[in-house]
Protein backbone atom coordinates (compact mmCIF):
# COMPACT_ATOMS: atom_id res chain seq x y z
CA UNK A 1 0.00 0.00 0.00
CA UNK A 2 1.24 3.44 -0.80
CA UNK A 3 0.79 6.89 0.60
CA UNK A 4 -2.08 8.86 -0.90
CA UNK A 5 -1.88 12.56 -1.80
CA UNK A 6 -5.27 14.25 -1.99
CA UNK A 7 -5.66 17.74 -3.47
CA UNK A 8 -8.14 19.67 -5.58
CA UNK A 9 -7.69 22.67 -7.89
CA UNK A 10 -10.86 24.24 -6.43
CA UNK A 11 -8.82 24.90 -3.28
CA UNK A 12 -6.81 27.46 -5.28
CA UNK A 13 -10.03 29.43 -5.82
CA UNK A 14 -10.53 30.29 -2.14
CA UNK A 15 -9.15 33.81 -2.47
CA UNK A 16 -8.02 35.98 0.44
CA UNK A 17 -7.20 39.71 0.48
CA UNK A 18 -3.98 40.88 -1.21
CA UNK A 19 -1.04 40.26 1.12
CA UNK A 20 -2.91 37.75 3.28
CA UNK A 21 -0.59 34.95 4.46
CA UNK A 22 -3.13 32.14 3.89
CA UNK A 23 -3.01 32.29 0.11
CA UNK A 24 -3.36 29.95 -2.90
CA UNK A 25 0.40 30.00 -3.55
CA UNK A 26 0.80 27.85 -0.43
CA UNK A 27 -0.74 24.91 -2.27
CA UNK A 28 1.22 25.64 -5.42
CA UNK A 29 4.46 25.56 -3.40
CA UNK A 30 3.55 22.17 -1.91
CA UNK A 31 2.52 20.75 -5.29
CA UNK A 32 5.82 21.85 -6.82
CA UNK A 33 7.80 20.27 -3.98
CA UNK A 34 5.92 16.98 -4.40
CA UNK A 35 6.70 16.86 -8.12
CA UNK A 36 10.25 15.72 -7.27
CA UNK A 37 11.40 12.30 -8.47
CA UNK A 38 11.25 10.70 -5.03
CA UNK A 39 7.52 11.40 -4.82
CA UNK A 40 6.65 9.69 -8.10
CA UNK A 41 5.24 6.66 -6.28
CA UNK A 42 2.66 8.75 -4.43
CA UNK A 43 -0.90 7.82 -5.39
CA UNK A 44 -2.61 11.08 -6.34
CA UNK A 45 -6.31 11.76 -6.34
CA UNK A 46 -8.65 14.76 -6.35
CA UNK A 47 -10.73 15.43 -3.28
CA UNK A 48 -14.47 14.81 -3.60
CA UNK A 49 -16.96 17.25 -2.04
CA UNK A 50 -18.01 16.43 1.50
CA UNK A 51 -21.71 15.75 1.97
CA UNK A 52 -23.34 18.42 4.11
CA UNK A 53 -24.57 15.83 6.61
CA UNK A 54 -20.96 14.71 7.13
CA UNK A 55 -19.82 18.28 7.85
CA UNK A 56 -22.85 18.44 10.15
CA UNK A 57 -21.17 15.83 12.37
CA UNK A 58 -19.24 18.83 13.75
CA UNK A 59 -21.08 21.97 12.65
CA UNK A 60 -24.82 22.81 12.76
CA UNK A 61 -26.49 22.84 9.33
CA UNK A 62 -27.55 26.48 9.72
CA UNK A 63 -23.90 27.44 10.29
CA UNK A 64 -22.89 25.52 7.14
CA UNK A 65 -25.63 27.35 5.24
CA UNK A 66 -24.48 30.69 6.67
CA UNK A 67 -21.03 30.11 5.16
CA UNK A 68 -22.61 29.24 1.82
CA UNK A 69 -24.78 32.36 2.00
CA UNK A 70 -21.85 34.58 3.00
CA UNK A 71 -19.95 33.50 -0.12
CA UNK A 72 -20.14 36.42 -2.58
CA UNK A 73 -20.56 36.25 -6.36
CA UNK A 74 -17.40 38.30 -6.66
CA UNK A 75 -14.96 40.07 -4.39
CA UNK A 76 -14.16 39.16 -0.82
CA UNK A 77 -16.38 39.22 2.27
CA UNK A 78 -14.78 39.39 5.72
CA UNK A 79 -16.15 37.07 8.42
CA UNK A 80 -13.73 38.40 11.06
CA UNK A 81 -10.40 40.25 11.14
CA UNK A 82 -8.54 37.21 9.76
CA UNK A 83 -11.13 35.14 7.95
CA UNK A 84 -12.83 35.85 4.65
CA UNK A 85 -14.70 34.17 1.82
CA UNK A 86 -14.59 34.68 -1.96
CA UNK A 87 -16.70 33.17 -4.74
CA UNK A 88 -14.77 29.88 -4.65
CA UNK A 89 -14.55 29.49 -0.87
CA UNK A 90 -17.56 27.28 -0.17
CA UNK A 91 -16.56 24.84 -2.91
CA UNK A 92 -12.96 24.84 -1.60
CA UNK A 93 -14.18 24.20 1.95
CA UNK A 94 -16.34 21.29 0.73
CA UNK A 95 -13.30 19.80 -1.05
CA UNK A 96 -11.07 20.30 2.02
CA UNK A 97 -13.54 18.49 4.29
CA UNK A 98 -14.28 15.98 1.53
CA UNK A 99 -10.59 15.18 1.07
CA UNK A 100 -10.30 14.46 4.78
CA UNK A 101 -13.32 12.14 4.75
CA UNK A 102 -12.15 10.40 1.56
CA UNK A 103 -8.75 9.81 3.19
CA UNK A 104 -10.48 8.10 6.13
CA UNK A 105 -12.33 5.79 3.72
CA UNK A 106 -9.12 4.96 1.85
CA UNK A 107 -7.09 4.03 4.94
CA UNK A 108 -9.93 2.01 6.48
CA UNK A 109 -10.53 0.31 3.12
CA UNK A 110 -6.83 -0.60 3.08
CA UNK A 111 -6.42 1.06 -0.31
CA UNK A 112 -3.81 3.42 1.16
CA UNK A 113 -1.34 3.05 4.00
CA UNK A 114 -1.83 6.66 4.99
CA UNK A 115 -2.76 9.95 3.35
CA UNK A 116 -1.77 13.59 3.16
CA UNK A 117 -4.54 16.02 2.25
CA UNK A 118 -3.11 19.25 0.83
CA UNK A 119 -6.15 21.47 0.69
CA UNK A 120 -7.31 24.84 2.00
CA UNK A 121 -8.95 26.59 3.80
CA UNK A 122 -7.45 25.04 6.93
CA UNK A 123 -9.71 23.91 9.76
CA UNK A 124 -8.48 23.65 13.34
CA UNK A 125 -9.60 27.12 14.51
CA UNK A 126 -13.19 26.72 13.26
CA UNK A 127 -15.47 26.31 16.25
CA UNK A 128 -18.81 24.54 16.12
CA UNK A 129 -20.63 27.60 14.79
CA UNK A 130 -17.92 30.18 14.26
CA UNK A 131 -15.41 30.70 11.46
CA UNK A 132 -12.11 32.12 12.68
CA UNK A 133 -8.34 32.10 12.18
CA UNK A 134 -8.54 31.51 8.38
CA UNK A 135 -10.78 28.43 9.01
CA UNK A 136 -14.35 27.65 7.95
CA UNK A 137 -14.97 23.94 8.74
CA UNK A 138 -12.82 21.84 11.08
CA UNK A 139 -11.58 19.20 8.65
CA UNK A 140 -9.64 17.20 11.24
CA UNK A 141 -12.61 17.05 13.58
CA UNK A 142 -14.91 16.04 10.74
CA UNK A 143 -12.50 13.23 9.75
CA UNK A 144 -12.36 11.86 13.31
CA UNK A 145 -16.12 12.07 13.84
CA UNK A 146 -16.77 10.45 10.46
CA UNK A 147 -14.45 7.55 11.36
CA UNK A 148 -16.31 7.08 14.65
CA UNK A 149 -19.66 6.98 12.87
CA UNK A 150 -18.81 5.12 9.67
CA UNK A 151 -16.34 2.58 11.04
CA UNK A 152 -17.53 2.36 14.64
CA UNK A 153 -14.13 2.93 16.15
CA UNK A 154 -14.04 3.51 19.88
CA UNK A 155 -11.00 5.79 19.90
CA UNK A 156 -9.43 8.31 17.51
CA UNK A 157 -6.62 10.78 18.15
CA UNK A 158 -6.10 14.20 16.60
CA UNK A 159 -2.49 15.33 16.95
CA UNK A 160 -1.98 18.99 16.06
CA UNK A 161 1.55 20.34 15.62
CA UNK A 162 0.51 23.60 13.98
CA UNK A 163 2.19 26.47 15.86
CA UNK A 164 -1.22 27.86 16.83
CA UNK A 165 -3.46 26.03 19.27
CA UNK A 166 -6.42 24.29 17.62
CA UNK A 167 -9.13 25.88 19.72
CA UNK A 168 -11.83 24.60 17.37
CA UNK A 169 -10.79 20.96 17.59
CA UNK A 170 -10.36 21.22 21.36
CA UNK A 171 -13.81 22.79 21.65
CA UNK A 172 -15.47 20.12 19.50
CA UNK A 173 -13.88 17.21 21.41
CA UNK A 174 -13.87 18.78 24.88
CA UNK A 175 -16.51 16.37 26.21
CA UNK A 176 -15.88 13.39 23.88
CA UNK A 177 -14.05 10.53 25.58
CA UNK A 178 -13.70 8.77 22.21
CA UNK A 179 -11.37 11.36 20.69
CA UNK A 180 -8.11 12.48 22.24
CA UNK A 181 -6.96 15.93 21.10
CA UNK A 182 -3.22 16.55 21.55
CA UNK A 183 -1.42 19.77 20.61
CA UNK A 184 2.02 21.37 20.62
CA UNK A 185 1.87 25.11 20.03
CA UNK A 186 3.48 28.42 20.93
CA UNK A 187 2.14 30.27 23.97
CA UNK A 188 1.50 33.16 24.17
CA UNK A 189 0.11 33.40 20.66
CA UNK A 190 -3.21 33.32 18.83
CA UNK A 191 -5.83 32.17 19.78
CA UNK A 192 -4.84 32.29 23.47
CA UNK A 193 -6.13 28.80 24.38
CA UNK A 194 -4.08 25.63 24.94
CA UNK A 195 -2.76 25.97 28.49
CA UNK A 196 -1.51 22.86 30.27
CA UNK A 197 -4.50 22.95 32.60
CA UNK A 198 -7.04 22.63 29.76
CA UNK A 199 -7.65 18.88 29.85
CA UNK A 200 -11.25 18.37 28.73
CA UNK A 201 -14.24 16.81 30.45
CA UNK A 202 -12.66 13.31 30.40
CA UNK A 203 -8.96 14.17 30.48
CA UNK A 204 -8.70 13.52 26.73
CA UNK A 205 -7.35 16.97 25.86
CA UNK A 206 -3.54 17.09 26.05
CA UNK A 207 -1.83 20.45 25.59
CA UNK A 208 1.93 20.91 25.41
CA UNK A 209 2.55 24.66 25.04
CA UNK A 210 6.02 25.80 23.94
CA UNK A 211 7.72 29.10 24.64
CA UNK A 212 8.58 31.65 21.95
CA UNK A 213 12.10 30.90 20.77
CA UNK A 214 11.88 27.19 21.50
CA UNK A 215 13.37 24.91 18.84
CA UNK A 216 13.57 21.25 17.94
CA UNK A 217 14.92 20.16 21.30
CA UNK A 218 11.97 21.54 23.30
CA UNK A 219 9.51 20.33 20.64
CA UNK A 220 10.91 16.79 20.70
CA UNK A 221 10.96 16.79 24.50
CA UNK A 222 7.26 17.79 24.54
CA UNK A 223 6.53 14.89 22.19
CA UNK A 224 8.61 12.37 24.15
CA UNK A 225 7.40 13.30 27.61
CA UNK A 226 3.81 14.36 27.06
CA UNK A 227 2.29 13.79 23.61
CA UNK A 228 3.50 10.31 22.68
CA UNK A 229 2.97 8.58 26.06
CA UNK A 230 -0.59 9.88 26.31
CA UNK A 231 -1.34 8.91 22.71
CA UNK A 232 0.15 5.42 23.18
CA UNK A 233 -1.86 4.85 26.36
CA UNK A 234 -5.06 5.95 24.62
CA UNK A 235 -4.41 3.45 21.79
CA UNK A 236 -6.33 5.20 19.00
CA UNK A 237 -7.59 3.16 16.04
CA UNK A 238 -7.03 6.15 13.73
CA UNK A 239 -4.65 9.09 14.01
CA UNK A 240 -5.56 12.37 12.33
CA UNK A 241 -2.73 14.88 12.04
CA UNK A 242 -3.43 18.61 11.96
CA UNK A 243 -0.25 19.25 10.01
CA UNK A 244 0.64 22.91 10.25
CA UNK A 245 4.19 23.83 9.33
CA UNK A 246 4.25 27.31 10.87
CA UNK A 247 6.42 26.25 13.81
CA UNK A 248 9.27 26.38 11.25
CA UNK A 249 11.95 28.95 12.04
CA UNK A 250 11.26 30.87 8.81
CA UNK A 251 7.55 31.31 9.44
CA UNK A 252 6.44 34.95 9.74
CA UNK A 253 3.48 34.33 12.06
CA UNK A 254 5.21 32.74 15.04
CA UNK A 255 8.49 32.49 16.97
CA UNK A 256 9.36 28.78 17.18
CA UNK A 257 12.50 27.47 15.51
CA UNK A 258 11.74 24.05 14.05
CA UNK A 259 13.38 22.80 10.87
CA UNK A 260 12.23 20.24 8.29
CA UNK A 261 13.93 17.37 10.15
CA UNK A 262 11.79 18.06 13.23
CA UNK A 263 8.59 17.57 11.22
CA UNK A 264 9.96 14.34 9.72
CA UNK A 265 10.91 13.12 13.21
CA UNK A 266 7.46 13.92 14.64
CA UNK A 267 5.82 12.15 11.69
CA UNK A 268 7.90 9.02 12.29
CA UNK A 269 7.03 9.02 15.98
CA UNK A 270 3.32 9.35 15.21
CA UNK A 271 3.67 6.51 12.68
CA UNK A 272 5.20 4.31 15.38
CA UNK A 273 2.09 4.79 17.51
CA UNK A 274 -0.19 4.22 14.52
CA UNK A 275 1.65 1.00 13.65
CA UNK A 276 1.25 -0.24 17.20
CA UNK A 277 -2.48 0.34 17.67
CA UNK A 278 -4.12 1.65 14.49
CA UNK A 279 -2.77 -0.69 11.80
CA UNK A 280 -0.79 2.30 10.59
CA UNK A 281 -3.87 4.38 9.77
CA UNK A 282 -2.92 8.07 9.55
CA UNK A 283 -4.85 10.85 7.85
CA UNK A 284 -2.76 14.03 7.74
CA UNK A 285 -4.39 17.34 6.88
CA UNK A 286 -2.67 20.59 5.96
CA UNK A 287 -3.31 23.42 8.41
CA UNK A 288 -0.96 26.44 8.54
CA UNK A 289 2.53 27.30 7.26
CA UNK A 290 3.04 30.72 5.71
CA UNK A 291 6.62 30.89 4.49
CA UNK A 292 6.45 29.24 1.09
CA UNK A 293 9.97 27.81 1.12
CA UNK A 294 9.63 26.42 4.65
CA UNK A 295 6.16 25.10 3.85
CA UNK A 296 7.35 23.33 0.69
CA UNK A 297 10.37 21.72 2.35
CA UNK A 298 8.55 20.81 5.56
CA UNK A 299 5.55 19.25 3.85
CA UNK A 300 7.93 17.32 1.57
CA UNK A 301 9.79 16.02 4.65
CA UNK A 302 6.45 15.08 6.23
CA UNK A 303 5.19 13.25 3.15
CA UNK A 304 8.55 11.54 2.65
CA UNK A 305 8.28 10.21 6.20
CA UNK A 306 4.71 9.04 5.59
CA UNK A 307 5.94 7.16 2.51
CA UNK A 308 9.04 5.58 3.97
CA UNK A 309 8.61 5.67 7.75
Amino acid sequence: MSTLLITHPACLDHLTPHGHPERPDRLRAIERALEAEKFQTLARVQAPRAELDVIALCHPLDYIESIREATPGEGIVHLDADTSVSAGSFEAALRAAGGAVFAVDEVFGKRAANAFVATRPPGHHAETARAMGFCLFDNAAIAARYAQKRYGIARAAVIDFDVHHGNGSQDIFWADDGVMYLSTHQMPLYPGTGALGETGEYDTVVNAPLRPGDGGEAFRAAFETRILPRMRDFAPELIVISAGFDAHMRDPLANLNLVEADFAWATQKIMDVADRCAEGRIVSLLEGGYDLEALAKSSAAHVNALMHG
Partner: protein
Amino acid sequence: MAQQNIPNNQGDTDIGALSFERAIEELESIVKRLEDGKVPLEESVAIYERGEALKRRCEDLLRQAEARVQKITLDAGGNPTGTEPLDVE
Protein backbone atom coordinates in the same frame (compact mmCIF):
# COMPACT_ATOMS: atom_id res chain seq x y z
CA MET B 1 -5.68 45.36 5.62
CA ALA B 2 -4.90 44.37 9.17
CA GLN B 3 -1.16 44.13 8.61
CA GLN B 4 -0.91 47.88 8.08
CA ASN B 5 -1.82 48.36 11.75
CA ILE B 6 0.88 46.06 13.03
CA PRO B 7 3.67 47.80 14.90
CA ASN B 8 6.76 46.88 12.90
CA ASN B 9 10.43 47.23 13.72
CA GLN B 10 10.33 50.92 12.84
CA GLY B 11 7.37 51.33 15.17
CA ASP B 12 9.40 49.82 17.96
CA THR B 13 11.88 52.71 17.87
CA ASP B 14 9.45 54.77 19.98
CA ILE B 15 9.83 52.24 22.78
CA GLY B 16 13.29 53.59 23.57
CA ALA B 17 11.67 56.87 24.62
CA LEU B 18 8.92 55.40 26.81
CA SER B 19 8.89 55.93 30.58
CA PHE B 20 8.84 52.85 32.79
CA GLU B 21 5.22 53.51 33.72
CA ARG B 22 4.08 53.83 30.10
CA ALA B 23 6.07 50.77 29.00
CA ILE B 24 4.73 48.54 31.77
CA GLU B 25 1.19 49.81 31.18
CA GLU B 26 1.33 48.90 27.49
CA LEU B 27 3.00 45.58 28.29
CA GLU B 28 0.22 44.67 30.72
CA SER B 29 -2.40 45.55 28.12
CA ILE B 30 -0.62 43.35 25.53
CA VAL B 31 -0.43 40.40 27.94
CA LYS B 32 -4.14 40.75 28.69
CA ARG B 33 -5.09 40.94 25.01
CA LEU B 34 -3.00 37.86 24.19
CA GLU B 35 -4.40 35.91 27.13
CA ASP B 36 -7.96 36.86 26.25
CA GLY B 37 -7.45 35.71 22.66
CA LYS B 38 -8.62 39.07 21.37
CA VAL B 39 -5.78 39.57 18.91
CA PRO B 40 -6.29 38.56 15.26
CA LEU B 41 -4.09 35.68 14.07
CA GLU B 42 -2.22 37.86 11.60
CA GLU B 43 -1.33 40.46 14.25
CA SER B 44 -0.67 38.05 17.09
CA VAL B 45 3.05 37.55 16.49
CA ALA B 46 3.73 41.27 15.90
CA ILE B 47 1.97 42.18 19.12
CA TYR B 48 3.88 39.51 21.03
CA GLU B 49 7.15 40.88 19.61
CA ARG B 50 6.23 44.44 20.67
CA GLY B 51 5.56 43.02 24.13
CA GLU B 52 9.06 41.53 24.14
CA ALA B 53 10.55 44.92 23.17
CA LEU B 54 8.57 46.61 25.95
CA LYS B 55 9.79 44.02 28.43
CA ARG B 56 13.39 44.72 27.40
CA ARG B 57 12.77 48.47 27.82
CA CYS B 58 11.43 47.92 31.36
CA GLU B 59 14.41 45.72 32.22
CA ASP B 60 16.85 48.34 30.90
CA LEU B 61 15.19 51.08 32.94
CA LEU B 62 15.28 48.94 36.07
CA ARG B 63 18.98 48.23 35.57
CA GLN B 64 19.68 51.95 35.08
CA ALA B 65 17.72 52.77 38.23
CA GLU B 66 19.64 50.17 40.19
CA ALA B 67 22.93 51.67 39.06
CA ARG B 68 21.81 55.07 40.34
CA VAL B 69 20.82 53.83 43.78
CA GLN B 70 23.77 54.30 46.12
CA LYS B 71 24.34 53.37 49.70
CA ILE B 72 25.02 56.18 52.18
CA THR B 73 28.15 55.46 54.13
CA LEU B 74 28.33 56.32 57.82
CA ASP B 75 31.30 56.98 60.11
CA ALA B 76 31.86 55.31 63.48
CA GLY B 77 29.65 57.91 65.13
CA GLY B 78 26.76 57.17 62.77
CA ASN B 79 27.17 60.37 60.76
CA PRO B 80 26.89 60.32 56.95
CA THR B 81 30.28 60.60 55.26
CA GLY B 82 29.46 59.94 51.60
CA THR B 83 28.08 57.28 49.26
CA GLU B 84 29.19 54.03 47.66
CA PRO B 85 27.50 51.82 45.02
CA LEU B 86 24.70 49.66 46.38
CA ASP B 87 25.44 45.96 46.10
CA VAL B 88 22.15 44.89 44.54
CA GLU B 89 23.12 41.23 44.59
